[in-house]
């Protein structure tokens, strides 16, 4: 396969957006067909590029001018993340009707997100990721300017921070290409900046981040696309950081802190989920919850943790496609989606969470304590899921945007794929781990039948298959549960959240005391600055003279 073909997936999406614009402005109603062809075509191209060789493909097209070279690279990590971005986006673009302007922006955002993942260096990732963020915000505002969306400034801050990381790496080591940056260049301060950029880019906070706020929007077209295209990018940076550091972060404490943040994020989501007033609110916390577990796994810094983290992200990607298509009304589709999200055995979400927690214990250095917290968090999320089954639906998004059958299919797919955990790890996660982290000696972690870890062997296929069969038979026999939708009290409310809420209120109400208002009279300040007053100009001159002569 010629390396120039690496341009094909992004180019295909760009062409699709052009075609959409043309068809839209010409009034032809073929946009969904064009979208399906473009987005699924891109998926096929990515698979066609990777599957035959299953080794890194590179394309160097020279300098762009701002320090970044147009280096594209498709390795195992890029492949996994490309699919995580493309698959949910393609499903949503194909199945959800949207105006052609919105669709055009969405496909452009998808192309930018894919470029960020295929980029060979930090700066190009920053540019493409920033573009994806910009386009996502625009798409959200086009859909509904009044609805909540990720703070643009926050996203810009994340990608600017990453571009600064790239700049520092270039200044310090002469390159910001992932594969070429010397290990010594990734110092603790630079990593902290990179990690901050990653966390902000994906909204990985213990409090309610944009990934959960988006589900409160009246429509879930742009919201679903934003989650599908933006959410994985922060994790991508953290995985690439392993490549820069030759499989390690600059200091062990970084692993511990990131893993702890991961648990906090997951716990925050679980705590909010168990207090949700509607099922819609609960569903909004599903992706952040999985994101927290993924961050915990990736942060641990062991091959098993990384593999579990990547696999968790794959599950999150499928749910990112499932949840926007899910109708708010109660029913089997909701039930299956909730079961898939909560990690009901023997689902894929169950298996990856088990591996993530196992990784914390096997990592040693007291990281097992994080594992205990993770297990408790999982229990809280199970509580939230059980409670959510009987919650009122909440504000429904337009039925035209939903596809109950597809949503149920995706949810069921996540559950049914549980026995194939080993296969999923072997195909998606393990090659990615080997790419950025020295592979452990001995038997590979992921296999067709089982998952081998340091202390145990998880016979995913042979144990989960009978469990799955028994469960299916039993549930079919049992029929749907007789659950009455009703408001349910929260098990607990986090005092910290209430405290933060109160502080925010006070901050909003805060104002300058009357006697000092004249000091911050903006109108007067503006008049003074723009009045062209000779005195001000003279004073400025004197100040400059003083500054250079002191």
């Amino acid at each position: 396969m010629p390396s120039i073909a690496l341009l094909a997936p992004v180019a295909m999406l760009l062409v699709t957006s052009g075609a959409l614009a043309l068809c839209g402005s010409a009034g032809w109603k073929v946009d969904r067909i064009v979208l399906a062809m473009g987005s699924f075509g891109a998926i096929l191209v990515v698979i066609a590029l990777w599957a035959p060789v299953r080794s890194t493909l590179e394309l160097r097209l020279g300098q762009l001018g701002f320090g970044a070279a147009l280096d594209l690279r498709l390795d195992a990590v890029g492949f996994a993340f490309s699919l995580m971005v493309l698959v949910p986006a393609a499903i949503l673009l194909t199945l959800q009707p949207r105006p052609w302007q919105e669709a055009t922006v969405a496909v452009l955002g998808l192309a930018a997100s894919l470029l960020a993942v295929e980029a060979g260096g930090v700066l190009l990732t920053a540019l493409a990721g920033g573009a994806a963020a910009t386009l996502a915000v625009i798409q959200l505002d086009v859909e509904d300017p009044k609805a909540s969306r990720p703070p643009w400034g926050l996203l810009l801050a994340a990608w600017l921070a990453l571009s600064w990381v790239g700049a520092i790496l270039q200044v310090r080591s002469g390159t910001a290409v992932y594969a070429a940056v010397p290990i010594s260049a990734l110092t603790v301060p630079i990593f902290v900046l990179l990690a901050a950029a990653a966390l902000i880019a994906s909204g990985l906070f213990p409090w309610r981040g944009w990934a959960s706020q988006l589900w409160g929007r009246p429509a879930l077209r742009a919201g679903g696309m934003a989650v599908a295209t933006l959410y994985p990018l922060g994790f991508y940076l953290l995985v690439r950081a392993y490549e820069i550091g030759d499989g390690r972060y600059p200091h062990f404490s970084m692993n511990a802190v990131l893993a702890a943040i991961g648990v906090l994020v997951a716990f925050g989501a679980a705590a909010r989920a168990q207090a949700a007033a509607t099922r819609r609110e609960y569903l909004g916390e599903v992706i952040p919850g999985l994101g927290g577990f993924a961050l915990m796994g990736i942060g641990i810094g062991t091959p098993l943790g990384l593999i579990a983290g990547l696999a968790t992200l794959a599950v999150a990607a499928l749910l990112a496609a499932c949840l926007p298509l899910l109708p708010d009304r109660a029913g089997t589709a909701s039930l299956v989606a909730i079961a898939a999200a909560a990690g009901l055995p023997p689902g894929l979400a169950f298996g990856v969470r088990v591996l993530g927690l196992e990784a914390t214990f096997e990592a040693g250095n007291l990281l097992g304590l994080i594992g205990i917290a993770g297990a408790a968090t999982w229990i809280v999320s199970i509580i939230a899921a059980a409670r959510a089954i009987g919650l009122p639906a909440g504000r429904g998004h337009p039925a035209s945007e939903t596809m109950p059958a597809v949503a149920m299919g995706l949810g069921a797919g996540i559950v049914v794929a549980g026995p194939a955990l080993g296969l999923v790890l072997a195909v998606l996660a393990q090659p990615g781990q080997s790419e950025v982290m020295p592979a452990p000696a001995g038997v590979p972690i992921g296999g067709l039948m089982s998952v081998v870890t340091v202390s145990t062997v998880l016979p995913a296929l042979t144990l989960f298959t009978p469990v799955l069969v028994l469960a299916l038979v039993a549930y079919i026999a049992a029929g749907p549960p007789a659950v009455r939708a009703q408001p349910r009290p929260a098990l607990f409310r986090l005092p910290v959240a209430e405290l933060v809420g109160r502080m925010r209120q006070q901050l909003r109400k805060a104002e300058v005391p009357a006697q000092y208002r004249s000091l911050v009279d903006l109108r007067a300040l503006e008049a003074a600055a723009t009045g062209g007053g000779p005195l001000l100009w003279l004073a400025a001159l004197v100040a400059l003279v003083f500054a250079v002569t002191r």
Partner: protein
Amino acid sequence: MQPELAFALPGVSLPISAMSRALLVAAAGSLALVVAFPPPKPERTVLLIWGGAGIAAIAAIAAAPSLDLVILLTLGVAMLHAALAGRRTLAARLRAPALAVALLGLGLVFARLEGPTILAAFAAVGLVAGLAAALGVLPYIHEFDPEEVTAASPIVWMAFLGPILAVAVVTRARELIPEAGAAFGAMLIGLGLLNILWGSLASWLTEKGTSAWHYSFMADWGLVLCGFGVQVADGQAAALLVLYSISLSRLPLYLWSRQPLRERIQTDRPINLLAAAMLAGSAPFAGFAARVLLLRGATQLYWPLALVIAIGLLLWLPPSLRLGRSLGLPRGRQAIGAGIALSLSVAIGVYPQPILSLAGL
């Protein structure tokens, strides 16, 4: 920066630096854009005449062999510009540019005096203050009347004449006072940061929409001054890209927004949001590449400076959203113009190398 290149005119050979040449191209492009897709008012011929005169002035300043001539030409341009029909009195219009000329002149005189090194420092002060006064950035903001015709307003200094003048002064100042280079750079960075802060905040919080645009130019100039002050190639490249985005993006959008501003039209269409993103320097627009280069330059110089600049860069968004909305919904030719401006900005943002090469960077 590349050594001066000979730019042949019939019969006479005038040296034009590569950077000036690049800016001349940007100014011409900007004029072409606003003339080809003119706003309802003022009419195209007016823009063409005044713009053409401006291009001639820019070319003259770019081709001036010495700083004396640059300053004298600036004075001449200032007097001619002040004589244009505008709403402010001639005295008000000439005040700041004339002060700029005096300060630049004093700076030049001090730079040429023999004596203690303090004279070089005074020269640096004169040149920096003079440049700030010529551009009309804080603390030497030109008196601004929102209703004044653009060609007679201070925007001309900021968006049209300013870039070339700044390049002429900064490049020559470095040769004139090498011993005060650090002080010169430090003052540029100081004024740059001041203008980033003031420009973005004032653009966000001011009541008048036209004034918000005026302040937004100052914020961009803050970046340019920081870029010139950093005194490494990346800084110059960043400054050049910001100057390009001022000429090819901000100025045309400002002209196209005048009518909607008068009619108090605010829209939230994709075009407005894209314009906001472009004005805010979000990726993939030119501003983002400029910011990356600036951060790189600042990191080479002193990393805390990069941190301060990075924080400052976040202040662009709120005013940019406001300015983007003030564009209204461009129709017909203006819509095409806006599309071209956006496309140009994306092209420069993704692949700025040709422009940097044109500028010898």
